[in-house]
């Protein structure tokens, strides 16, 4: 399967999807770890993919949304942002609203 198609599929299948460095239990980068902590604080159920173990994914996800950095958080198919935007949205309550809307 083409990488762009693979990415689309995984984003479709996971309403909240995080592309990160490492795993939620063992993040390999402070920015990825911060987003995991925020998602956990919001009680989000989320899928994750480790770009460090998948070079094709690492390049592919940057092209997918024209966004050159990892982590990247998607909610219901939409790129929410990297760690700066996720943190900002966590602080002002927008993120929790989006996540609750998914679960509800």
């Amino acid at each position: 399967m083409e990488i762009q198609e693979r990415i689309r599929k995984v984003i479709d299948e996971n309403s909240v999807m995080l592309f990160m460095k490492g795993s939620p239990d063992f993040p390999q980068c402070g920015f990825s770890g911060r987003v995991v902590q925020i998602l956990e604080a919001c009680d989000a159920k989320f899928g994750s993919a480790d770009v460090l173990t998948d070079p094709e994914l690492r390049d592919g996800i940057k092209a997918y949304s024209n966004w050159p950095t990892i982590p990247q958080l998607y909610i219901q198919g939409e790129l929410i942002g990297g760690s700066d935007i996720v943190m900002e949205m966590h602080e002002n309550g927008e993120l929790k609203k989006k996540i609750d809307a998914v679960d509800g």
Partner: protein
Amino acid sequence: MMATPEDIKEWIEQNLGQSEVEISGDGRHFDAVIVCAGFAGKTRIQQHQMVYAALGDRMKDDIHALSMRTMTPEDRTAETTVDQ
């Protein structure tokens, strides 16, 4: 090549146009505050994408991580007023 905060400021201001950029950082991780009139009416995602586009390949080659806050001149005025 290690980028300096001054390099990044110059790269962004050159390509983004009509912007004011403040950067701090250590050569690998940088924090930026970017004020640009062109951000008006854009989402945060689009604002960050504009900055990434301004940096182009530098984002891949010279910069490991860039934290940024983006705002329009009006946003900044509002923020300053709130702070007082």
